[in-house]
């Protein structure tokens, strides 16, 4: 089957799947995911592993887009209002997650390196899944606001602590025989900083370019071309430079929103055009995973999944309480943060090259857990939003609005 046909199939079937699950009061993304499972190696094998790998570019673009959109959170006005609180809340949630997962896995018999790594990866919240659910539910309200705000910070934080964790483990594990600890630590710190600061710097630069160039373009469509193009350039370039595409695109979005306030509607417009990409992303995510991975996660995998949710719930509960967030937030925030996917898988894959001996165990657990979370998470999110009373009736989105 040609790749073109495959992509077409993916899209059409995703739509079908999405609509089907809606009858069950389940968010569309779950439907996409199931379609992916169905098309993938676990069932019909229409999408082979090679096909999935070949279409990885879509996933990258999707991630880049979503994080670019999330970057809008860092608008200075917004930040001034909610920045500090959001930061602290994020810290609460993150630490809650890390500690709970770490302890649970340790108790279940894993070594501290694996437990730490998993604890850190657990902080990840799938931005796409969450945002898509929120969009679908057309939700509004303090809970929704908080979720949006947290998402950005949380994922930045996730990448940062991941870097720190790997750094720590490598430090303890010792470096190459001939380098002194200083040199080794120095190198590691440099790479850590480069990954974060460098990505931000890069994102800022491109953001500036975008802002300046974008101002000269009148036509709406062309602006979209520019933005999309830039996002792709950033995603590609960061790989080459050893930077993080996620942080860079986020920084790019943040820069843009701050340099050109009117670009907010640009983000909205993007939001209208990116659903196909996200559908593909989720179908691919589903195809990537195999049902067999559920069987191998074992007790640690189950422990991880449960501990993660608990950690988030506990962290957000106490954080919200401490920081005077409204009740809805306090009660339900944790449950909206369950989705767990793309970035987590990406991190697990990265581990393959860094810590090959741990990568096996971690990959197995993550993959199995993601499978569960991607199915269960959006449902829980929906329930939580519903309970918080922030669900609005789905607005009629004109389907063929001219772009």
């Amino acid at each position, binding site marked *: 089957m040609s790749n073109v046909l495959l992509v077409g199939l993916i899209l059409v079937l995703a739509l079908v799947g999405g609509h089907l699950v809606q009858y069950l009061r389940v968010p569309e993304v779950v439907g996409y995911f199931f379609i992916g499972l169905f098309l993938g190696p676990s069932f019909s094998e229409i999408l082979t592993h090679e096909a999935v790998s070949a279409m990885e570019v879509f996933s990258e673009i999707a991630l880049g887009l979503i994080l670019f959109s999330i970057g809008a959170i860092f608008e200075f006005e917004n930040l001034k209002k909610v920045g500090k609180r959001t930061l602290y809340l994020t810290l609460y949630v993150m630490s809650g997650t890390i500690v709970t997962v770490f302890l649970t896995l340790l108790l279940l018999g894993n070594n501290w390196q694996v437990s730490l790594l998993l604890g850190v990866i657990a902080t990840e919240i799938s931005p796409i899944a969450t945002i898509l659910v929120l969009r679908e539910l057309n939700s509004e309200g303090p809970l929704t606001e908080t979720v949006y705000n947290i998402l950005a910070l949380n994922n930045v934080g996730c990448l940062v602590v991941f870097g720190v964790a790997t750094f720590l483990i490598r430090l303890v594990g010792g470096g*190459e025989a*001939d380098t002194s600890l200083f040199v080794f630590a120095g*190198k590691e710190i*440099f*790479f850590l*900083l*480069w990954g974060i*600061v*460098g990505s*931000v*710097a*890069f994102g*800022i*630069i491109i953001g*500036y370019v975008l802002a300046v160039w*974008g*101002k000269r*373009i*009148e036509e709406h469509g062309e*602006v979209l071309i520019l933005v999309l193009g830039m996002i792709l350039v950033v995603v590609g370039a960061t790989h080459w*430079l*050893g930077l993080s595409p996620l942080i860079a695109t986020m920084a790019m979005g943040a820069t843009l929103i701050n*340099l*050109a*306030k*009117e*670009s907010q509607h*640009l983000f909205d417009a993007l939001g209208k055009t990116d659903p196909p990409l996200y559908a593909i992303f989720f179908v691919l995510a589903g195809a990537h995973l195999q049902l067999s991975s559920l069987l191998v996660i074992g007790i640690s995998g189950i422990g991880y999944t449960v501990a993660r949710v608990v950690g988030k719930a506990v962290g957000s509960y106490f954080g919200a309480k401490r920081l005077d967030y409204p009740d809805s937030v306090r009660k339900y925030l944790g449950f909206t943060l369950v989705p767990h996917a793309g970035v987590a898988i990406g991190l697990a894959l990265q581990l393959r090259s860094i810590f090959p001996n741990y990568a096996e165990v971690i990959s197995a657990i993550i993959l199995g857990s993601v499978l569960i979370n991607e199915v269960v998470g959006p449902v829980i999110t929906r329930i939580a939003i519903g309970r918080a009373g922030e669900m609005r009736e789905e607005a009629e989105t004109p389907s063929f609005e001219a772009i």
Partner: protein
Amino acid sequence: MKSSAPIQSWKYHVSILTTAILVIVVGGLIRNLIIKKTEHAETSVLQALQTEVQQLKTSLKRNDLEAISDIVALAAKKAAPAVVSITPANSLALPRPVTTFNDYRIDKRQQSDNGETLLPGVSGLLLNASGEILTTSALAASGKEFQILFADGTKHAAQLIGVNATEHLALLRVQQTDKLPAPPESAATTPIEAGAWLIRLGRSPSGRQSVALGWLEAIRRDAVGRETYFLDAEFTPELDGSPTINLDGQAVGLNVFRSDLGKGVMIPLPHALTVAQAIRTDAQAAPQSWAGVELQDLNDEIKRALSVSQGVLITQVLANSPALRADLRPLDVVIKAEEKTIQSARELTELIHRSPVSTKLRWTIVRAGVTRDITVETAFFDGVNITVTPSQTFGIEFAREASANGLAITSVQPGSAGQRFGLQAGDLLQAINGTAIRSLNDWQRQQRALSPETPQLWLIRRDEQSFVLAVKAGGKAS
């Protein structure tokens, strides 16, 4: 996008941008440096690893060589108790056979460690607890009483039981059989293949072990089906009669020097043991019949060329033989013997061997298309007839190496036929009766084909000059 009034001054933007660019540039450079350094470190690590692997390989090879010497030493140690040195009891008897390379047994006498003058000797293999020793038939010329020296230094007297000259083997028996060392385990059952590593293990009269490692080059089967094994291991004089052992220390054959071939070969132990048994069972070995022909099986082309349908081709008629006396000639085809059609060389050989000595055998041959009947009276074969050595017949020695130019004469015994006819040391024998001589084999073949009474025309090259000498064999030297 419509432009909007910037909130901050452009200085602010420029500074942010510059910082960002600086971060990227500097960071990128540092990153590049670090990566290059790690790559460099990795390549040097890689190179160090490669060198180490090389060294390991070399030391492994070296260990292999040392391992080989260990294995050989171990095998030799295992087999050593059964390897003996045999010297004639009579100190005055000089042993034969003569090897064509410089045989220091004739000229030199070895000194033992305590200064006793020792006689040159051969080696032998202790077969069993009855004290039987298998060795080369060469020492039959030295009489019937011998002294045996064992690995542990003990000496025993032994007597010659019998000789099988065709097989080049002789059997001795030690008189006192108590306190004999154990004979080695024989590996008679496992067949050896070409390429197998083998060790010639001999003992010199001083008690010293002689060890020669080599591999089995080739196995030749002659017309009678006897196998000759060619080892590329060194064959020094004291290795004559010595056993060949495998790497496990088991005896697999006996080494004998074949003067007709000019080199030492190995007789596989199973065959040697059969011969020993034959020697043993009739100590007066029943005289074996002999006709004196070399035979070859026919193939389709030869059958067509000679217009025969079956039979055996005579390729050589040996000197002093019944066949010669019956006027058989090379290229005769024996189609019938004693009323039976002959299909193979083996058949005819067995017929000859089965017949008692002095039996008149009736053969039908085809020569040049003409069939005729011939009577061959078998004669007694004492084995010496076949072996013609230069020193026996002419009192000369040839150089060991064959060359394209001819066979070099290394020495001429005073008073010998060779000297009488004018041969000198340093002469190069190039042809006999017009047939080029390039090796001892060639010489042997000529000698067999020619009657000993007829003078032979030898083409000699001496001092850049070629000339012909008419020589006649002076008879066997002892």
